[in-house]
């Protein structure tokens, strides 16, 4: 893949693989209005799919589909092979020691809930402490609140500094011998903040606490190495990395996973079942009760192939360019506040507020200009409380976005100010 001079990758070439990006929206043929070009800047919510990923699932359904594991026939072997191969792709993608450490779930949310229910209920007691941060997505907050309620565990909170970064220097004061887990995000889905994962893990280890990394916003965008992170659990979603919906991953250290009781009960996760009891099966099956998301797992494997082909380092470098462009464009507009840290600590997520205009109104005007962004609390209400705002507008990028789209974003924000801004 030869990128244009000065760019780490060629977004125009790559966009050709994404049919959905090449459309006009809000056309009104009756009135001869041909609509506006779509600029998809909602990648923090979910990403789009190249033909290759979609085709991998079509191939599955049209050629090799079957249930996995227990079927004793030709198609079943093909599906089992394909699911095993996808598991190994995930393993390599994360640089994980063993494929059995890769548990397929529906997404980040289920992955974290799995840990909270299986590990949490089995190993946490009243008075134990879990540290989460103020910038977490609800998916990495509510499951721990539920665990706290079930088990009397105490939650402690690592604060966001005024610089848009986690206040890591204050972490030691939150840690003690009762700390069982530090659960935190690798990249904030609102501020774009890249957190110092290895540093936080090292601190947690000092008091013998485990670590769970919500990597929903990092795995798709930058190289992941669970061994260099040194953490115990990592959770992420397929649909945020050009993969299908309905599939995600929980990675965990083998010994740790192997010490945990099953979460969901059902077919595939057992060794032996009697009417009144069961014995659990081996990893990874113990945590994959029921028919897995077979086609989606295969699609996730194809997504990883595609991302590897583009190159994670190129993706990250290119997104840095897009983010810098967004800071430049939006930063030049009076009345616009960009939230989060300075560029060097930031991934491809830019949330902002427009003075005197409600974020949902901003998003509405942007939408009519074809620019897909998200307005709201982005499933991070406590973070917005901390910022002192009820909601924000978020533009989030992926490798198929262009600087031109970001220029259009800036123009549309100006239009929103014109339509809504208090006339002075």
């Amino acid at each position, binding site marked *: 893949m030869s990128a244009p001079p000065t760019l780490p990758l060629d977004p125009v070439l790559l966009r050709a693989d994404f049919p959905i990006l090449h459309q006009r929206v809000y056309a009104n043929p009756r*009135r001869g209005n041909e609509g506006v070009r779509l600029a998809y800047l909602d990648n923090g919510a979910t990403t789009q799919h190249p033909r290759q990923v979609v085709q991998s699932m079509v191939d599955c359904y049209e050629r090799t589909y079957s249930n996995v594991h227990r079927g004793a026939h030709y198609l079943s072997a093909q599906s089992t092979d394909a699911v095993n191969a996808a598991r190994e792709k995930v393993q390599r993608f994360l640089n994980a020691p063993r494929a059995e450490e890769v548990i397929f779930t529906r997404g980040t949310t289920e992955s974290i809930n799995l840990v909270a229910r299986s590990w949490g209920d089995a190993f946490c007691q009243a008075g134990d402490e879990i540290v989460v941060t103020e910038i977490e997505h609800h998916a990495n907050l509510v499951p721990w609140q539920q665990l706290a309620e079930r088990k009397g565990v105490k939650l402690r909170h690592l604060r966001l500094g005024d610089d848009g970064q986690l206040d890591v220097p204050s972490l030691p004061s939150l840690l003690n011998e009762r700390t069982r887990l530090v659960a935190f995000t690798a990249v904030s889905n609102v501020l774009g903040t890249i957190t110092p994962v290895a540093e936080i893990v090292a601190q947690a280890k000092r008091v013998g606490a485990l670590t769970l990394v919500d990597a929903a916003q990092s795995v798709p965008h930058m190289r992941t190495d669970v061994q260099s992170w040194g953490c115990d659990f990592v959770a992420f979603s397929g649909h945020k990395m050009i993969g299908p919906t309905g599939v995600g991953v929980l990675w965990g250290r083998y010994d740790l996973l192997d010490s945990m009781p099953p979460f969901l009960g059902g077919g595939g996760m057992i060794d032996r079942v009697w009417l009144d009891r069961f014995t659990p099966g081996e990893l990874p099956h113990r945590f994959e009760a029921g028919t897995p998301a077979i086609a989606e797992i295969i699609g996730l494997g194809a997504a990883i192939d595609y991302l590897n082909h583009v190159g994670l380092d190129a993706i990250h470098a290119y997104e840095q360019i897009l983010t810098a462009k967004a800071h430049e464009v939006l930063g030049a507009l009076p009345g616009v506040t960009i939230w989060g840290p300075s560029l060097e600590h930031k991934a491809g997520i830019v949330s902002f507020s427009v003075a005197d205009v*409600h*974020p*949902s109104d901003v998003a509405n*005007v942007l939408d009519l200009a074809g620019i897909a962004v998200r307005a*709201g609390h982005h499933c991070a209400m406590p973070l917005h409380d901390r910022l002192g705002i*009820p909601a924000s507008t978020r533009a989030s990028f992926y490798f198929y976005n262009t600087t031109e789209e970001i220029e259009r974003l800036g123009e549309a924000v100006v239009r929103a100010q014109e339509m809504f801004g208090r006339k002075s």
Partner: protein
Amino acid sequence: MKTMTVAELASEFDDCWDETERLKLILELGRGLDPLADEFKTEENRVLGCQSNVWVVSNVTSGVPERLHFDAASDGETARGLIAILLSLVNDKTPAEILALDLDGIFKQLELARYVTRSRSNGLASMINRVRDLAQQRHLAN
């Protein structure tokens, strides 16, 4: 704000060339919404599932048959416009009349269906539900 018929609304919206004009009309209609005193902006009156805050209260008019009058407010301007349109369709009707309205259908007819869908952003679907619930309660109370 005055009550408008569906036909009146439809003809106004039909004149819009594009979605931006349509939005401008929504906003204009929102500016006609009677203000709601702050004391009514309570958690109880807040409509769940809207991204901007929306509050809706209903009052029963004296007279027979009794009719419902709604007041509402929002901190989002689009949401305010949408609730204004909704109220113009239902205000000062009897609970039974309100329940008989196919509000989803009407918004579809106005080509505002997309605002109904986005239940979690503009919250029109939630607003419709709240209005219907309030009418239902009153209807059952009679």
